[in-house]
C-alpha cells in the first residue's frame, strides 16, 4: 500500500503549522536566559521600544501551576526566580510583525546573579553546586542478576572498558511550531507539530488549572519528530497559549532553526564503564556495568531514558551474573530528552564496542564471541526476562554476514590494506535488541484507549491519538484496520488526532504505535463488528463482504449515526514486571538486529566513510515493506551521523554550533547503499503481528561502524562521534602515509 499522505508531501500540498492560513494573528517569541545558573534579579525592557505594542507574558501570567507537566514537575514553564540553563525561557512576547518581534527579543535583558554551575556530570560537587536532592542525581537505578562481584573475582579473564557518547540534535525537517487561540466557548486550543497530543493536553490543564473540557489539542502534519517533539511541544504549546490567552488573539510560535537547535532537547550524552568476566573460550561469566547519563538542567524524561538504557546495557546476550548501575545527573545544560532509541543506543554502543574489545583480548573473532553468547529461546535477559519468541539471534547474525559477504570481503581488505598507501578498509558487526512499547509497567499505567467507528456513510474511522510524523502511522493503521475487517483500505479513514475527538491511545513514542496501538485497532474492530452483527441479527461478527453489506444496510437505516467499537490496553498474560526489584518482563517483546558495516578510513585526513551497510532484523511481521525499510534506512543514516559527524559543541551548557552549517549531518554523499533485510516472525500481541521498528535501527550502526574502524586501523575508538579530530589522536603518528 502506498503512503497515504505521500503525494501531498511530495508535491508540497501538505500544510504544516507555518502554512496554515491565519488572519489577525500575532507572532510569539521567547526571551531566554543568557546565564547557565543564577538568581533572576531583574528583567529590563529597553525604553527605546514601544512596549505597549507588544503582548508580554511572564511567570506571573500563568493561571495555574508554573510547572511543565512531566514525570517530576521541577521545570518551570517560564523561569521565575532562578535560571538553570542558558536559553531557559523567561519572558514571552507577541506582536503582529515578526521582524519587529525578533528585534524586540534582543531588547529585553534578563539580569542574573550568577551561581556556580555544573557542566561535567562526573566532576565532584561543591556544596554550592547542589540543585537537586543531595547529589544532583535525578534518578539512580540498579539491575542485579546472580552475583556479578563474585563471578568477576573468580573469572579467568576480566576485560574492562569505558565508552562515551555525545549529545545529538534531532534535525527534524520542520522546526517546532505551535498555534494557540481561545475558541468561542472559551476553550484554550492549540494545534501544532507534536508527537503526543495528550502530553500537551495535560501540560495545558496543569498550566491553566483547567479540566480536560477547557483545553483542546490538535495535531498538524508533523515534519519529523524522532523524540524531539515528545516532551518539548508541551512547553511551546503552553507558551503560545499564554500569549493567546493574554492577547485574546491567535498566536503562532515557529522556532527558527537556530533557536530550535539551541533551546530544545538533545540525546543524553553518556559514559558507560564495563568490567566483564569471560572464560578463555569466550563465554560471558559476569557483566558489571556502570552508566552515567547527563540529564541537563531538569528531570524531564531522564528517569525513563536511564531505565531503557540500563535494561539494554547487557545486550542480547546470556550471562548468569549481571550488575548494572545507572545514574541520570543534573548539569546546567539544556535538558536532554527523548531521542529515537531513548537510552538504548548509548548503552548498546558501549556493550557492542566492548564485545569487540573482549574478542581482541581473547584473540577470538568478534563474530564467534557473539555467536557463543547470543540469547537463545528460553534463556533470560539481565532482568530475568525469558525469551519466548522471535527469530533465532544466530540466524539473524548469519543472514547479515552472508548479505555482507563478510569473510570474503575481510580477506580482500587485508590485501588492500597491505598495498594501499593511505586507505584502510575494515568491517564491524553489532548484534542488539530493542524493547517495544513502554518499559516495565508503563503500558499498564498508560492504559491506552482506542475507538473504531462504523459510520453510516459505509466507512470505518480509526480514532487514536497516535500521530503521523513521517514514519507511516496513517498507512499502517489503515492496513491493520482493513486486514482486521477484511475490507478494502479505501473503506478505512484515520481520524486526525484532536483531543476533543479521539481517545488517548498514548504517546507516539517507544516503537509502540504499530505493535501496541495497532493491536488495539484489531480489538476495537472486533468489538465494532460484533455490535454490527448484533444490530443486524447475524449469528457472528461479520467480516469482508458480509461486513460491508451489513454496514451499508445499517447505515441506510441509521443515517448520521455510528457504531463505536472500543478497546483498552491489556497486557499479555505472560508479562510480569516487578518495579521494586527491576526484575521480570521489561518489555512484552523485543525486536532484534544484526548489522554489518564496512568502512574506509583515509589516513591522510582521518575521515571515515561508510562504504557498505547491511541491516538484518526481526521486527515481527512487516506491515509495509517500503515504510519498514524506510524506517531502517533512515535510522541507519541518523546513526551514521551520530557515529561519525554529529557533534554538539558546548559552551557553558549551550550549543555553540546551533546552525546547520556547523552541526554536520550526513548528506546522501556520505551514505552508502543500505541493504535492509527482514526475517519475519509474527508476534501474537502486535498489530498485524508487528513488533517495534522505529528505534531499533538507531542502536546498531554506531558500534558496528566503530568496530569497523577498529578493524581497519587497529585503533580502539571508544567515543562517539568519531570525528576525524578524535580518530587522529588514536592513530600513532608513525602510521603517517
Amino acid at each position, binding site marked *: 500500500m502506498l503512503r497515504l499522505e505521500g503525494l501531498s508531501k511530495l508535491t508540497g500540498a501538505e500544510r504544516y503549522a507555518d502554512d496554515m492560513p491565519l488572519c489577525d494573528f500575532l507572532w510569539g517569541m521567547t526571551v531566554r536566559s543568557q546565564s547557565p545558573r543564577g538568581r533572576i534579579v531583574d528583567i529590563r525592557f529597553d525604553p527605546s521600544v514601544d512596549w505597549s505594542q507588544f503582548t508580554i507574558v511572564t511567570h506571573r501570567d500563568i493561571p495555574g501551576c508554573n510547572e511543565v507537566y512531566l514525570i517530576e514537575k521541577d521545570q518551570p514553564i517560564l523561569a521565575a526566580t532562578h535560571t538553570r540553563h542558558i536559553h531557559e525561557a523567561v519572558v514571552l512576547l507577541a506582536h503582529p510583525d515578526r*521582524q519587529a518581534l*525578533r*528585534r524586540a527579543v*534582543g531588547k529585553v535583558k534578563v539580569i542574573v546573579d550568577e551561581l556556580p554551575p555544573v557542566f561535567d556530570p562526573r566532576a565532584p560537587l561543591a556544596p554550592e553546586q547542589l540543585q537537586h536532592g543531595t547529589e544532583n542525581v535525578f534518578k539512580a537505578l540498579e539491575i542485579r542478576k546472580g552475583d556479578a562481584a563474585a563471578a568477576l573475582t573468580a573469572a579467568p579473564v576480566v576485560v574492562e572498558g569505558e565508552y562515551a557518547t555525545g549529545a545529538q540534535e534531532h534535525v527534524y525537517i520542520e522546526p517546532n511550531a505551535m498555534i494557540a487561540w481561545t475558541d468561542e466557548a472559551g476553550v484554550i486550543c492549540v494545534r501544532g507539530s507534536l508527537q503526543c497530543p495528550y502530553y500537551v493536553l495535560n501540560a495545558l490543564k496543569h498550566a491553566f488549572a483547567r479540566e480536560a473540557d477547557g483545553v483542546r489539542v490538535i495535531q498538524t502534519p508533523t515534519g519529523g519528530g524522532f523524540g524531539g517533539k515528545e516532551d518539548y511541544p508541551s512547553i511551546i504549546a503552553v507558551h503560545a497559549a499564554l500569549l493567546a490567552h493574554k492577547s485574546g488573539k491567535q498566536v503562532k510560535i515557529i522556532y*527558527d532553526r*537556530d*533557536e530550535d537547535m539551541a533551546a530544545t532537547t538533545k540525546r543524553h550524552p553518556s559514559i558507560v564503564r564495563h568490567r566483564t568476566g569471560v572464560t578463555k573460550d569466550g563465554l560471558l561469566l559476569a557483566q558489571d556495568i556502570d552508566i552515567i547519563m547527563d540529564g541537563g538542567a531538569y528531570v524531564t524524561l531522564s528517569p525513563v531514558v536511564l531505565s531503557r538504557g540500563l535494561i539494554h546495557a547487557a545486550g542480547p546476550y546470556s550471562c548468569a551474573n549481571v550488575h548494572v548501575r545507572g545514574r541520570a545527573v543534573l548539569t546546567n545544560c539544556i535538558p536532554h530528552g527523548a531521542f529515537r532509541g531513548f537510552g538504548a543506543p548509548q548503552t548498546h554502543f558501549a556493550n557492542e564496542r566492548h564485545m569487540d574489545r573482549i574478542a581482541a583480548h581473547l584473540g577470538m573473532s568478534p563474530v564467534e564471541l557473539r555467536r557463543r553468547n547470543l540469547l537463545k529461546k528460553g534463556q533470560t535477559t539481565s532482568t530475568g526476562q525469558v525469551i519466548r519468541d522471535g527469530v533465532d539471534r544466530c540466524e539473524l547474525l548469519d543472514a547479515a554476514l552472508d548479505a555482507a559477504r563478510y569473510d570474503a570481503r575481510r580477506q580482500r581488505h587485508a590485501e588492500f590494506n597491505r598495498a594501499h*598507501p*593511505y586507505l584502510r578498509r575494515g568491517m564491524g558487526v553489532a548484534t542488539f535488541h530493542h524493547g517495544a512499547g513502554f518499559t516495565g509497567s508503563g503500558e499498564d499505567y498508560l492504559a491506552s484507549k482506542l475507538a473504531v467507528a462504523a459510520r453510516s456513510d459505509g466507512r470505518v474511522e480509526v480514532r487514536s491519538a497516535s500521530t503521523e510524523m513521517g514514519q507511516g502511522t496513517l498507512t499502517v493503521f489503515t492496513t491493520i484496520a482493513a486486514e482486521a475487517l477484511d475490507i478494502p483500505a479505501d473503506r478505512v479513514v484515520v481520524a486526525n488526532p484532536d483531543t476533543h475527538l479521539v481517545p488517548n491511545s498514548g504517546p507516539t513514542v517507544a516503537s509502540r504505535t504499530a505493535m501496541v496501538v495497532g493491536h488495539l485497532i484489531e480489538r476495537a474492530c472486533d468489538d465494532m463488528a460484533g455490535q454490527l452483527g448484533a444490530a443486524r441479527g447475524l449469528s457472528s461478527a461479520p467480516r469482508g463482504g458480509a461486513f460491508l453489506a451489513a454496514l451499508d444496510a445499517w447505515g441506510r437505516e441509521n443515517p448520521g449515526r455510528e457504531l463505536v467499537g472500543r478497546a483498552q490496553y491489556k497486557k499479555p498474560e505472560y508479562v510480569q514486571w516487578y518495579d521494586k526489584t527491576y526484575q521480570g518482563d521489561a518489555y512484552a517483546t523485543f525486536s532484534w538486529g544484526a548489522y554489518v558495516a564496512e568502512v574506509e578510513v583515509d*589516513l*591522510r*585526513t*582521518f*575521515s571515515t*566513510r561508510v562504504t557498505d551497510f547491511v541491516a538484518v532484523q526481526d521486527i515481527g511481521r512487516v506491515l509495509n515493506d517500503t515504510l519498514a525499510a524506510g524506517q531502517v534506512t533512515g535510522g541507519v543514516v541518523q546513526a551514521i551521523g551520530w557515529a561519525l*559527524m554529529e557533534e554538539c*559543541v558546548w559552551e557553558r551548557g549551550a550549543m*555553540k*554550533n546551533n*546552525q546547520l*552549517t*556547523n552541526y*554536520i549531518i*550526513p*548528506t546522501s*554523499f*556520505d551514505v552508502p547503499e543500505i541493504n535492509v533485510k527482514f526475517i519475519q516472525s509474527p508476534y501474537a500481541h502486535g498489530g498485524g503481528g508487528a513488533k517495534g521498528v522505529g528505534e531499533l535501527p538507531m542502536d546498531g550502526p554506531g558500534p558496528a561502524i566503530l568496530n569497523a574502524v577498529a578493524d581497519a586501523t587497529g585503533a580502539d575508538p571508544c567515543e562517539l562521534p568519531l*570525528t*576525524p*579530530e578524535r580518530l*587522529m589522536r588514536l592513530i600513532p*603518528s608513525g602510521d*603517517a*602515509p
Partner: protein
Amino acid sequence: MKVACPTTLAEAISHKALGFTPVAGATDLWAHWPVRTANHDLSYVDLSGLHELRGIAWSAEHLTLGALTTYWDTMQDSRVNAEFPLLIAAARYVGAIQIQSRGTWAGNIANGSPAADGVPALMALDARVRLVGSNGERTVPLDRFYTGYRATVMGVDELITAILVPRRTYSFTAFEKVGPRRAQAITKVGFAVAHSADGWRVVANSMAATVRRCPSLEAILNASHPNPPAEPDLRAAASKDLAPISDIRSTAEYRTEVFARLLRSTLATMTARP
C-alpha cells in the same frame, strides 16, 4: 534596509563610498538572513544590473572573469575547463549547485573568509584583482589583497570589477578540500598547488586568518624540484607559513597534521606520474 540597484559602475561606486555593502549572488547574506537582524539595518548595493561586470573574456595573456562570473559560469565553460582545471576543481567543491549558480568568484574574494574555496585556486594561479574606485582603476595581486582577518586593501569606494588570471602552461595543479563531510561543508583544511615555469605556488585556506600563500613551502619545493622535499622539511616550512587555530569546526593540531599529510600525498601523485 536600503537597496540601491544601479545600472552604471559610477553609480555603484558612489553607493559603495557611502557604506553600502555590495551584493552579487547574496549567498553569504541569505543563509542567515531571517535571524541576523543586524543585517536588516544595513544598506546594500545590488551589482546584478551592471552588465559590464558580466562575462568571461580571453586575451593572449589573461583569462578575465567579470566580477559577476559565478562558479557555475566557469563550470559550464569548456575553455576554462580545458585550460584551468584547478578553477573547476575548486568550483565543484563550493556548496551545492544552488550556491555554485549564484555565488561569484569576486564575491568569494571580497567576502574575505579564510575558508574561501575559490580564492586559493585563483591565488595559486597568480590572479590579480581589478578594482575601480572614484579615483580610477588599479590592479592588485590577489596574494597582496588581504591585510588580516576579513580585512583587505580595498578602499571604501572601490569595487572589484574583474579577476585576471595569467595564461601559463602548468605542469601540475591540485586542489584539496577537507570538510567535515564529503560535500556541502565549510573547509577545515584546504590548499591549491600549482607548478609552472614561474615556479611553485602553494596556497592554503582555513589554515590562517586569511587565505594565504606559503612562501617557505614554495621555496623548498622550488629548491628540490623535480623531487618532492623531505617530509620534515615540508612540515617545518608549513609551520613557518601557517597559523591554524582551534575553533568550532576543528582543531589547530588536526589542521596542522592533515595539511602536512595531504600535501605530501598530493605531491607524491605528481612524482608518481611518468
